[in-house]
């Protein structure tokens, strides 16, 4: 079974004090070059994909309103547009921006991800996220959300719509038939006629079927409702085992057979002591030890390689790394972890496919609307 590696890009890194590290470039966060540089770095490490994190509102440590903290990064750019801006300047790595299903139009996102797939020649995906924060509802003038089950149900509908829209043009719909003057064969364009509690969408898409047919759909899941979404709607799930022993149980709770990657926050250095020092410095600036939904690894690239292989052997298809301080820990991944895994014969030494689905070993899907 092939081992897959992903990196999750979030600001200057996943540690809230990472922006104060010597290598960090907090004032570059709003420049295209910053993001292009990071994704190219990940591509030099032959990683399968990057996810670009996003939230609908601004970052906050409070559960239902913006905070007044001035000592952490606040402000961000739209993840989809970052991925689009990077697409023409990269050639093999998958680009998976975050979309907030709760507040966005599936019609817009379907064509946006299709277009990212065209701009990247088959390397697009989307990581779907639910928003339950009341302050994010207020940004668009909506009333406060229903239950968790309703929000996830809406996200499942959202994914169903974007998927149907991707298929709403058959691959050979454009005929350019000069004899009859017809540009398309309208029998190969399909209304999707989706109807659900939150929205109804008629279709077809305005964008033809993208190169991958179905770009990758992913979600992060911590428990059952989200596991259900991953299993029934996604190609890839990100999960957060606290230890290796959790992996079999988590896989068992996810229905179907999507790919599953384990998330881990990483602080890396030449020696374990140096890595501990780095994390300790960031923790002291934070005023406490870092708390994360995902497991935290502090140590050497070789130590991380052990963990990655252990998780892989325990049943995960891959690992999504969340660099503690991206300008330090991403190079540690690409120049330390990846060569180590290659030495062990556990990771690719060259890209073996041109599309994201190809890298992940997913077949080109049949169109649900095409006549058999």
């Amino acid at each position: 079974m092939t081992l897959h590696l992903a990196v999750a890009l979030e600001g200057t890194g996943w540690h809230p004090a990472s922006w104060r590290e010597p290598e960090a470039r907090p004032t570059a966060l709003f420049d295209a070059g910053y993001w292009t540089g990071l994704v190219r770095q990940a591509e030099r490490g032959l990683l399968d994909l990057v996810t670009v994190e996003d939230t609908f509102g601004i970052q906050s440590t409070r559960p239902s309103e913006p905070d007044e903290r001035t000592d952490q990064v606040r402000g961000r750019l739209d993840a989809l547009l970052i991925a689009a801006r990077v697409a023409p300047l990269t050639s093999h790595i998958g680009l998976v921006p975050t979309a907030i299903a709760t507040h966005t139009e599936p019609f817009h996102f379907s064509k946006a991800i299709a277009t990212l797939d065209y701009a990247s020649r088959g390397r697009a995906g989307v990581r779907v996220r639910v928003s339950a924060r009341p302050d994010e509802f207020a940004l668009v003038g909506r009333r406060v959300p229903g239950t968790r089950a309703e929000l996830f149900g809406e996200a499942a509908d959202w994914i169903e719509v974007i998927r149907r829209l991707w298929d709403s043009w058959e691959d050979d719909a454009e005929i350019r038939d000069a004899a009859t003057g017809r540009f398309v064969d309208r029998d190969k364009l399909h209304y999707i006629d989706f109807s659900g509690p939150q929205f109804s969408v008629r279709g077809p898409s305005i964008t033809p079927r993208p190169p991958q047919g179905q770009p990758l759909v992913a979600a992060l899941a911590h428990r059952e409702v989200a596991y259900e979404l991953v299993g029934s709607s996604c190609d890839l799930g990100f999960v957060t085992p606290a230890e290796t022993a959790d992996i079999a149980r988590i896989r068992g709770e996810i229905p179907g057979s999507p790919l599953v990657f384990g998330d881990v926050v990483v602080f890396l250095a030449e020696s374990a002591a140096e890595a501990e020092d780095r994390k300790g410095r960031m923790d002291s600036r934070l005023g406490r030890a870092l708390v994360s939904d995902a497991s935290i690894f502090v140590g050497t690239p070789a130590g991380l390689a052990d963990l990655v292989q252990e998780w892989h052997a325990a049943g995960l298809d891959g690992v999504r790394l969340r660099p503690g301080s991206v300008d330090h820990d991403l190079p540690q991944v690409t120049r330390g972890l990846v060569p180590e895994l290659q030495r062990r014969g556990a990771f690719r030494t060259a890209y073996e496919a041109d599309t994201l689905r190809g890298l992940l070993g997913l077949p080109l899907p049949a169109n649900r609307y095409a006549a058999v």
Partner: protein
Amino acid sequence: MPRKQIHLAAHFPGVNNTTVWSDPASGSHIDFSSFQHFAEAAERAKFDFLFLAEGLRLREQNGLIYDLDVMGRPDTFTVVAALAAVTDRLGLAGTINSTFNEPYEVARQFASLDHLSAGRAAWNVVTSWDAFTGENFRRGGFLPQEKRYSRAKEFLAATFELFDSWQGDEIVADKETGEFWRPAGDFAIRTDQFDLSGRFPVPRSPQGRPVILQAGDSDEGREFAASGADAIFTRHGTLEAGQAFYADVKGRLASYGRDPEDLKILPAATFVLGDTDAEAQEKARHIRYQQVSPATAIKFLEQLWNRDLSDHDPDGPLPTVDPVVGENTIARGRASVRMHRDPIATANEWRALAEAKHLSTREVIIEVTGRQNFIGTPGRIAELLDEFVQADASDGFVLVPHVTPGGLDEFADTVVPLLQERGAFRTEYTGSTLREHLGLKPAPTTSGKDFSSH
């Protein structure tokens, strides 16, 4: 006094009834390489900006998907953000609808785009109201007539408030003291159509706000543009009509405390080039026949007649029956049918034209559906464009080539150097932002003084 400078924009020829897809040179209007080719030609020629239109539902006629024109287009924001990666100076203008989007989301996207393009974003604000397109969206789409411009105004004003919620000096990022920022972005917007509050997440972008473009020939559209847009698109083809429009719109600016140069007037312009004027005329005639195939002629006819004419002979005379008056049911959601205000009178004009010139149905359609604006040698076209601008019929043009993706190449290589020789068009970019290319003042940092107060 230095010569008045021409501003040039390039409209990507996608879904548009002037786009000729049957030409052997016609390539993909979806593949990114086509957009890149087109953008690179525009930037090589030092154009102000590239322009993308948008339509959010595949067009239909007689209840069937309209299959005769180029159809399908990529997502505007996504393709424009990708184009920012392959160009350095060219402005990037996207059409984004104010009905089927949220102000918060659109402001977030445009502010992000402006950062990611280092100050080259422009927004063509359009409003639709048809329930037909609304079937693709959460909101639906219907708006009563009197709410259409008010929603558009409230929408634009809301985005301005969001853009202006950051002033540009909030991010300190002092690693020593640990101060990242001084909190900003708070907003609360309560209008007839919107009730939004929270904190805007995107720091002020290089242009402050995207350049605002507005299409509109109606009185309301002109007023809307005069109150807050940076450029207006029009369709006026003749010098006299252009001058009248120009004087009218520029005359409206003072009442909003704006100067004449604060709003650029950019008519759409089609063109056909040839080695001689006669050759260009012959090419233009050929292109018109490509643009209006026999099947297309019948579809145009149906849009005015508002009835099924699929059995009508395109090479025969116009129908003897009259158009169906009333709500247009044959081509729902099509902007073009709204031009037909009095269908019977228009039909009679067409009949008179057919009789006077002995024209078939198809030939009538070719006559009445916009011939090319500028036809001739590169020298002749450079002269005409410059004359138009120097005579205050416009501040420049949005060029609409008819072939994807190479339709701009010849113009860029032959006409632009002649405009440069005349001293009427830049030979190098002098600024880095689109606002600078267009000679616009920096965007205000406080909402309320401008657009939103009207």
